[in-house]
């Protein structure tokens, strides 16, 4: 497909006797932000290293912008900008010198473009200082700057929000969304933090124990979470409310902070009616969504433990 920016076909990585990842098949399209989600040790960094040429692909193929990483390495790498693990840059040089060095590696990156990229990542005030004086957030931003210099089609980021403060995370999220929308940049970002993925990404691929469990849009994932909602009720008689709802077939749990009820969206009006009919006064009803999304994630990544 013309718009396919990254395609992996049954990619497998074996080191010695251990299979680190197997059967990873993905396809990313122009202008989308794709989240690669999984617990620590799932194989995210290993997969990313194979995409950008740092690790050898044991089996399978990877295509970037139509070029095979194995057969047309130079063609593939021209289209990629990446940060793998930490953004390690030359500490003894200034940020600007670092960028100039990387700019030389690609034809047609002018001094103007370097300035432009510095502006995009908001490092104008510190760009002439030596990188060893930079904070982690500044290094991350310089890392993104060097990745964007040659206007690649694909940006590959390995846990880019590690060590960033909430403001930094928000800035990066907005920057990436902006670039994806305005320039059609495709972003492949890995993380183990659900909340961030939910806010930043269009689609999410979940990986665990080296296998790709599922690929869904964020909407679909949230939808799965909302199937069963966890409600937290505060009433004037929680134990009475508990017995009423249990009788009606709701799954309830009486805890110190209130009555926890698992209910589908459609049955919530029924729940409220039953409580009122039973003479129970309702003070507050809270929905905890983020806990549900975590449940979805946990559920999706659990079965793999039993070995597939």
């Amino acid at each position: 497909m013309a718009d396919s920016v990254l395609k992996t076909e049954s990619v497998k990585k074996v080191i010695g006797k251990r299979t680190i990842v197997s059967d990873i098949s993905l396809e990313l399209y122009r202008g989308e932000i794709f989240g690669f989600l999984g617990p620590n040790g799932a194989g995210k960094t290993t997969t990313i290293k194979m995409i950008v040429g740092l690790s050898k692909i044991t089996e399978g193929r990877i295509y970037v912008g139509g070029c095979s990483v194995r057969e047309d390495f130079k063609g593939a790498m021209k289209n990629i900008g990446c940060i793998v693990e930490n953004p390690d840059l030359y500490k003894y040089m200034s940020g600007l010198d670092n960028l100039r060095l990387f700019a030389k590696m690609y034809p047609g990156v002018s001094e103007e473009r370097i300035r432009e990229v510095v502006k995009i990542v908001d490092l104008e005030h510190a760009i002439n200082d030596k990188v060893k004086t930079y904070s982690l957030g500044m290094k991350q931003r310089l890392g993104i700057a060097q990745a964007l210099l040659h206007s690649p089609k694909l940006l590959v980021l390995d846990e880019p929000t590690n060590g960033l403060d909430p403001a930094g995370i928000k800035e990066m999220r907005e920057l990436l969304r902006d670039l994806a929308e305005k320039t059609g940049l495709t972003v492949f970002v890995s993380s183990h933090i659900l909340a961030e993925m939910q806010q930043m990404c269009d689609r999410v691929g979940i990986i665990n124990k080296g296998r790709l469990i599922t690929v869904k849009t964020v909407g679909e994932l949230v939808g799965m979470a909302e199937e069963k909602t966890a409600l937290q009720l505060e009433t004037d008689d929680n134990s009475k409310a508990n017995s009423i709802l249990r009788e009606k077939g709701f799954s309830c749990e009486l805890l110190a902070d209130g009555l926890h009820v698992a209910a589908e969206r459609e049955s919530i009006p029924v729940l409220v009616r039953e409580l009122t009919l039973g003479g129970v006064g309702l003070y507050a009803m809270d929905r905890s969504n983020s806990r549900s999304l975590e449940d979805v994630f946990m559920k999706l990544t659990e079965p793999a433990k039993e070995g597939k």
Partner: protein
Amino acid sequence: MKSFLTLISIENSKMWKRTSTKVMFFIMIFLVLAASCLLRYYQYYKNVDVHATPSVSATWKAEVQQEAQGLKAQIKQIENGKDNESQRSVLGSLKKSLAEDEYRLANNIAEAKPNSIWTKVSDFSQSGSYGALIALLLIIACAASVAGEFSEGTIKMAISRPYYRREILSAKLIVSLLYGLELLVTVFVVQSAIFAAFYGLPGIGAKEMMWTTGKIVYIPAVLKALCLYGLDFLTVIFYTVLAFTLSAITRSRSIATGFSLFMLLLGSSLAQMAAVFFTWAKYFPFTMTGFSSVVTKGVVLEGTTLPMALLVSGIYTVVIAALGYVVFQKRDI
């Protein structure tokens, strides 16, 4: 090709931006100047007349003839002796002296060494082991360039680019060797300049004998100086490639630097000691790397010549380099 030249320019900028590169460069210049000044001060202190032309005795021919006879006898005695391995290591030096004496007699050359500024430069550079010093600095620079990028983590930034790994590695090696060439040229120029300041420019066009382990050649002293510096550069290349490969394989600056340094300083003598007792040991990698000392002092290992030393070391250099490339290209980073 243009992109490869770009890579070289990039690696060169990286190298010169490191403080250690600049510091080592100035240390080398400082050492040359300091050592030369010390020599001059010593001569001043001992009231040596440095501008006097050394006199040649009227009976030099007879003296040289006598010396030659003595050397021939010694050589014959040692060659015919049995179980005298340690004595045999002197043979190379004796043969050189004999060849020099015979050449002088045959060509009527009165002075053993000309009073030339170039001779002073070569002799001082050789006794000061400038070659070894430069090899030392280059080992450090090369390890920093290759292994250093692994420990700093910046190797990821270098590899995930539209270049083959072998291109990146070659650029690093070439830039290190270029640094070595820059050091050598600078040292030669500085040494010549300061000696010219102290001693004037005696015997600029003078000729000097040079032993090539087979025969004597009579060449302009400046050419001999350049040859010796050139041979030193070849030695430097050998140890730089060693550091290069060790860096690529171990990714550790300390191991690469330490081991290469050890081999530079002791490897030669250790290997030569072994070779004195086991003749086949002369084909080990480190036994014949001191090319310039073979010219100035004669061979240590019986049966070796300068061309042989160059060939064997050359083959080892290529093999060691190839090993470095293969490991670097195969491994995951």
